[in-house]
Structure formats: C-alpha cells, structure tokens
C-alpha cells in the first residue's frame, strides 16, 4: 500500500456510506447550505470509543432530525404540539415522589415494570409500585405523591379504580401506554383522566390529539438489558438473515427482490403467513426472540416496532429497517441503523453491507452503545420525569 496515501486517508474522518445514501446526503447538504445562505454545516462529533480502524461518523447533517428527510408525521415534541413554551428553570426530580400502577401484561412486558421502577428509584426520592389504587398499603396513603404514573393501556375496570383513588394531594397523572401495535382503547377516558400521555408509536399522536389528549409524547419503552444483551446462541437460532414482517403482498415483493442475494443463505422469517415453500425457515413470533436477534448476521424489519428496534440494538444486532417516523427520534440512521425506503433500496443496501462486515459491525456497535446509554431505561425515565415536572 502507498504509505503516503494511507497517511492522508487516516487524517480524514469520513464514513463509507452506501452510494444511495451518499446522494441523499449530498442533496441534503445542498438544501441546508442554500437555507443557511452558504454556511458550513456542523460536523457531528465522533462516537466515543470508536476504533480508529473503523470509518468515522458521516460528514453531514443527515443524522440530525432533518424535517425534509422524514416522512410526513405529526411532530413529536411536546412544546410544538401545544404551542406553549416549557417554563424555564431547573427541575429537582430528586425530591419527586412517584406512585406507579402497572397494567402491563405479563407476557410481552413482564419485566418492563421492574426496569422502569429501578430507573425511577435511582433518580427520585420515592417510587412506590401498587397493584391497585383503591386501597393503598399503609404508609403510602399519607405521602403527597407528585406523579401518578400508570404503565400500560387502561381498560374500563381501571377507570373505576381511578375514579376514587385514595391519594394525598393532586399528583400529575401520566400514562405510559403499551400501544406499539395499535392505538389504545378508551381514548376519551384517557384524555379526560391524564395530564400526560406517553405513546410507543409516533403515528398515533394525531389520533390521540384529536380525541382530546392534552399532551402526547412519543416515548418507547427502553430495551430491558437483562433480557436483551449480546451473547452467543445455539446453532438452532443462527441465521444469515432474519426477516421480520408478515407475509403480505408488499412484504413479499420486498422479499422477492432480495431472492438472488438469499440463494446461498440461511434465512429465517418471523411473522404470519410465511411457508417453507418461500425458501425460509419459519420462526414463531416472539418465541425466544432475543436468541434469534443474537443469532442473525443481518436483521431486516418491515414495519418496525420501536420497542423491538431498541431490543435489536441492545443485542448488538445489525438492522436494516423499513422507513418509519418512529425511527428518527431515538436512532441515528446510518450510525446505528440502516433505513430502506423501497424494495430496490433494500436490495441495494443488503448487498452493500453484506460485503462490508466491519461496517455492519460499526453500525451494530453503535446500536449497542446507544441502547446502553442514550436509549437506556434511565434516560427514558428522566425524560418522562422532566416532562411531568414541568406540568
């Protein structure tokens, strides 16, 4: 290798991106430059701990929330929704007392309540879980809670409970819904009862707002690090490609476009409607899901669910995800996730990254790092507490 050229290359901090992504970035840069009157866009700082042998971060504003790159969706930020400014001044959450009532189902969120409680206990004065609101345990009835936090989707029985709770003071009432797959029911009651609504799916915000919810914030549950973490798995869970998504016509088209690339690969399909005749090994949805995440070289996710995107990151998985508004708030496209917008885009990116394992590892390492810190349960809880405190 030419030593002079290698020295020059090492001085540059440039990531090798997919050519299609590079074109989009270039167009973005041009738009931003025109908007700023020709000013130089700020280069994002490199991720801490990035190995010098790996490419550096992209030289663009792509990874920031660039509105024109996002598909149309209701804005997430609390302030923009209400048109009201958050009051200035520090918020002392260390003094806060939080009462937690979990309605989460045992199957899909069996440890979420504990993770959230652990996070709350680290940063507040009191975080007390109860199994119902009508008759609080002795010792809790006299505490003037600042926040009543309900986890999960309230049903009609819950609103009977909420009608006459024995609570001291007037705590802010917030509900952190488990509504990734479908909007919560009982929306009028939710709108009436809760000051703050946290949703797993940014696409639900317009509906919730229409139904009268005062403040809605997109805030997914963090991946539980005690469930989702990197590990070596049995060969039964190992695949070259793990394809997640139901076998509807659109997904089948997506899949068909990749067929040439899949010919010599072990492909698992997780979703409804897949058959072995499709050339895949069918995997039951949600069964030992973290094992499959850890066993896959590449995970392709059609219509990604935010909670599972974070879970894949927590396993250190490399994820190609179909474009979705939920992906931009907590993930950094091309740093910790790769987004595709069409069947052709998917085919091109799969081929590109498959030939570049160190680039895949860079992306999956960033995802793991993000899940551990930036998207940790503690960070989600802190965000919730700050928003609640500013009510």
């Amino acid at each position: 290798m030419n030593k002079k050229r290698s020295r020059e290359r090492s001085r540059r901090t440039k990531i090798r991106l997919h050519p299609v992504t590079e074109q989009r970035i270039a167009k973005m840069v041009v738009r931003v430059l025109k908007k700023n009157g020709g000013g130089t866009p700020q280069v994002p700082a490199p991720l801490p701990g990035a190995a010098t042998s790996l490419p550096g971060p992209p030289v663009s504003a792509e990874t920031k929330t660039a509105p024109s790159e996002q598909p149309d969706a209701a804005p997430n930020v609390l302030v923009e929704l209400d048109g009201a400014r958050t009051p200035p001044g520090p918020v002392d959450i260390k003094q806060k007392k939080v009462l937690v009532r979990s309605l989460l189902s045992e199957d899909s969120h069996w440890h979420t309540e504990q993770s959230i409680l652990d996070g709350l206990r680290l940063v507040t004065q009191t975080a007390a879980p109860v199994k119902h609101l009508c008759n609080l345990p002795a010792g809790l009835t006299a505490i003037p809670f600042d926040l009543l936090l309900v986890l999960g989707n309230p049903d009609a029985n819950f609103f009977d409970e909420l009608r006459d709770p024995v609570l001291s003071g007037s705590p802010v009432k917030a509900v952190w819904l488990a509504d990734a797959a479908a909007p919560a029911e009982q929306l009028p009651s939710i709108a009436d009862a809760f000051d703050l609504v946290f949703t797993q799916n940014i696409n639900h915000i317009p509906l919730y707002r229409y139904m009268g919810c005062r403040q809605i914030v997109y805030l997914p549950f963090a991946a539980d690090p005690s469930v989702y973490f990197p590990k070596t798995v049995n060969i039964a869970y190992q695949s070259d490609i793990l394809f997640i998504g139901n076998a509807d016509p659109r997904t089948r088209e997506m899949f068909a476009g990749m067929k040439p690339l899949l010919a010599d690969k072990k492909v698992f399909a997780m979703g409804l409607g897949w058959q072995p005749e499709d050339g895949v090994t069918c995997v039951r949805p949600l069964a030992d899901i973290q094992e499959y995440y850890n066993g896959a070289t590449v995970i392709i996710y059609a219509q990604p669910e935010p909670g599972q995107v974070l879970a894949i990151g927590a396993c250190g998985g490399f994820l190609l995800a179909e474009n979705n508004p939920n992906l931009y708030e907590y993930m950094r496209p091309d740093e910790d996730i790769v987004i595709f917008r069409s069947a052709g885009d998917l085919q091109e990116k799969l081929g590109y990254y498959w030939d570049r394992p160190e680039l895949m590892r860079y992306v999956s390492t960033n995802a793991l790092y993000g899940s551990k810190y930036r998207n940790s349960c503690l960070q989600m809880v802190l965000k919730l507490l700050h928003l609640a405190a500013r009510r």
Partner: protein
Amino acid sequence: MKLIAFLLPQFHPIPENDLWWGEGFTEWTNTRKAAPLYPGHKQPNEPFDQYYYDLTDPAARMWQADTAQSYGIYGFCYYHYWFKGKRLLEKPFNEVLRLGEPRIPFCLSWANEPWTRRWDGGDHHLLMPQDYGDERDWEEHFYALLDAFRDERYIRVQEKPMFIIYRPGNIPRCEEMIRLWNDLARGNGLEGIYFVRTLGGFPLPNQAGFEASLEFEPHYTFGHSRSQQIWSYVNTYGGDPHIAVDYDHVWENILNRSPHRAGETIFPGAFVNWDNTPRLGANGQSSIGASPRKFGWYLARQIERASRLYRSEFLFINAWNEWAEGAYLEPDRHHGYQYLKAVKSALEASASYTGRK
C-alpha cells in the same frame, strides 16, 4: 444448585381428617371448592389433566419424582407430622421408604404445629395438639425416623442426614433434644444429625444446636421484612375486604436482602406463589402479579445469590404441591407446565449467569 421442593403428603384420606373435615377429605377438597374473590383472582386451580392424585398410589409418587427430576428439581422435603408418638399423613413417605422408590433424594421437615380449624398453627379450635414430651418421647421420635436417616436417598450435609424443624422456638428444651438426637445418631452409626432451623413468619429465638437456617418464603418475608408495602386490601365480590399481597414486592425484598444474619449458614428460599383462599376464603391472603415468567426470572436471580452470596449448596422452594396455598410447581390447567419450565430455564440461566463476570 440443588433445588429442594417441599412436598405436602395430605393427598390421601385419613381417619382423623374424615372425622374433622368430612369423609374423604384431602387437600383436593379445599382446592375444588375455591372460587375467585375479585376480578383477576385465579381460582379454582385445577391439576393438569384433572390429575387429582392419591399419594398412597405408588404411580402418583413416581410421577411426582419423574416430573420433578426432569425439570431440574434435585429432591423433595417431605413434611413430617409427629405429635408425641402420634403420626399423621405418614403413609406416603413410609411407602417411599419401604419400596425404595422413587429414587429421588429426600429429607424431612418436622411441621411441629398443632392442627386447628383455622389452618394457622395457632391454638384456637384445636384438633390435634402439638406436644413434645421428654427424653423418652424424643428417643421414640428418633427411632421412628432412623430407617429414613439410614436410607441412601436421604439428603446429607457433611455426611449427616439433614433434618429440618419448622418451629423450634415452640419446643421446650429444644437444645437438649438436639443433643440427645445427635448422641443417638452417633450411637447408631451416623455421623450425627444436620439440624436446620426454619426462618418463617414467626418469632425466631436464638437457639443452639442448629447448623443452618432455611429461609422459608414467602412467610419469612411476610414476618420479618418490616415492609408495609407488601400488603394492601382489595374488595371482594362479596364486599369483604381481603388482604392482597404484592408478588413482586415480596420477591424484591427477598432478592435485595443482605445475606448476613447471625453468622450462621443460610439456605435461601423461593416461593412459587401465595394464595390460601382455598382454605380460608376471603379471610386468607392472595398475591397479585405472579406469572411463570416472573417466577423463572426471580428464581434465576435467587439461584445466583444462593451460589455467590450465600455459598449455599441448596435452595428450598415452597413448594412442590401446596395447592391450597397457591404454592405449587405441579402442572395445572391454567399454566400447564410453565412453572416447571421456568425452573429449568432458571437453572440454565443461572449456570450461564454465574459464569459471566
């Protein structure tokens, strides 16, 4: 980690129970009549495939042992009832001894409480008083169990058969009794008796002679955690207030407890669930929040603690078949084998977890 599950033998009729509770009374009598008291209350609990077994049937005992061992349970701790020479519910265990089957390791826990109409170990509505006698009675008791202690299946610690006493604080001259039994054991070819005291939800006086203590859950946490958040009231369908137990809060107490007590060896405990409403109706307590996945998760953490913090060879699970207290691992209609699968998963997870930094 050797998981030992408590086994209740009250699944066959005995004349005393026929007299006190009605013809043919067994634990199944209570479980069959249980009913849900509030929304979400899971009662009645029915055995999988309607297997209302009789423990005098050797096939039932074999099934218990085979099932337990296939999911990682190391042994059973049979409850033993001795009332100053009078034994109750001894038939299943005696048959295990006589037949040499099943081959699963076992030990005994002397459930030394009076039997009452209130199932609470108290002295009200007494059916069978718990007396202890003197040296002659103690000797008779020892010799009644010597064959068991000599059995090769009997669980030993330091070459000594392990004998658990539920409420040693109730035994007058307990330390003298223990010394006598150790002398008798050594005089009969044993190394001694490894006495274990149960830490339950009752007063725990300091007593010499015990080589270890056993955390009996959830009672130990009920009685000694000093946490007021474990309990709350729910309103039943009948309008009566009923004590509800926060399942997760109990486990949180168990898992965050300091391993240090009085310097003794401690065998940690685990519980499957708690619901004694089949026995006591609305006057009992039931827990809210239990599930097989949670149990497996908590058990894996407790197994890891037992190994790392307590350096314990054993972990005691309440229980294999306490159906009328909601503390059972046996498969049921609602969950199938999920609780047993959770045990197996917990053992596997703790093996890999213990190996990680």
